[in-house]
């Protein structure tokens, strides 16, 4: 398909507790929108099983320009990486409606 456009998918997996704060940051940093999903898994902070409120993780996905995604990732790195269970990654994706992202 020729009408596909390249954008960046920023995926963040973090403690569920951080969700409201990171969503406020996303809004402030101009993310056009995001999707949040409760998830569980295992990492440096041990099992994050997600079956009660202090133990859950959330995955936030944002599709936007790569400059914006990098700016958001840098902000997360600066504010949350030291103390919280959080990882994020960027990937190239194709979208049909570039004006949305």
């Amino acid at each position: 398909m020729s009408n596909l456009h390249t954008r960046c998918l920023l995926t963040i997996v973090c403690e569920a507790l951080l969700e409201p704060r990171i969503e406020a940051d996303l809004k402030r940093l101009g993310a056009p929108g995001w999707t949040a999903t409760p998830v569980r898994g295992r990492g440096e902070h041990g099992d994050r099983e997600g079956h009660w409120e202090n133990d859950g993780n959330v995955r936030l996905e944002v599709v936007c320009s790569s400059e914006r995604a990098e700016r958001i990732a840098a902000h997360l790195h600066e504010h949350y990486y030291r103390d919280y269970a959080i990882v994020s990654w960027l990937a190239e994706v194709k979208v049909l409606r570039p004006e949305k992202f």
Partner: protein
Amino acid sequence: MAIDPVVYFFGFGLIAGLLRADLRLPGPVYDALSFLLLLSIGLKGGVELARHGSIELLWQSLAVIGMGILLPILAFPLLRGIGRLGRSDAASIAAHYGSVSVGTFAVAVSWLGSRGIEFEPYMALFVVLLEVPAIIVGILFARGLQHNLDWRDMGRELFLGRSVLLLGGGLVIGALAGGEALAPLEPVFVDAFKGILALFLLEMGLIAAARLGPLREHGLFIVVFAILWPLFSAIIGLLFGLLLGLSPGGVTILATLAASASYIAVPAAMRIAVPSANPSLSLAASLGLTFPFNILFGIPLYAEVAQRLGGG
């Protein structure tokens, strides 16, 4: 010494968790149980509050808030000095142990109820009052009066957290509506209480089992603290209860509240306000050790002492 049947559910969950059995409740079910538990306690307390409201109760409430401030102030230097913990961890654990566990309160109520021991029925008010002061003291110990902490944001976290809001909301609804008007709701909020508590404790047993693993990494001090501190803070609770002229049942509950450590509201607040504190350390202590200790051994012990002192 007969064990309250709900405590068996906790033991069952604990053993199943240690055996790594897959028993866990889905998240939304756990949420519904904790909603029901908190609202039931709040409603019942609210109805009684409307019946017993008095100036004396106001003084009792102020004294209870004072106890909530005193406990973390006593715990912090101990955790720093003897435990050699860092400032953040000591402050966070002090906040956990100054605040209260609603689950422990519910077991104490159930324990007294099944033995027909009377207590002041508005004690749920004290649970709400004891949730927050220790968190504020803990934040002040960890951060001092720094200006970069957003207290407005923190206030939301403290007063709009699930347990404070649901207990407080239940208290207000109970007080406004009164016992008779609430009678149609009794099948859910009163009759089902013990069943809900049993399921909640089964889940807490599973969660507590998962917390015992990390305990090994944290050394002996925290294990000793998680068992001995509740015995000490229970004495403070007993003294406050006696000074306030509570019945032996009421003294038992206040001692239990003083001895209990938060594992829901405080961890969430500390994670936001004092992110450098290690959450697995404080939760291993409060949920892995202190909670089981209190519901298995603490409550009967505090009741025994309260009855001897009160009956003398």
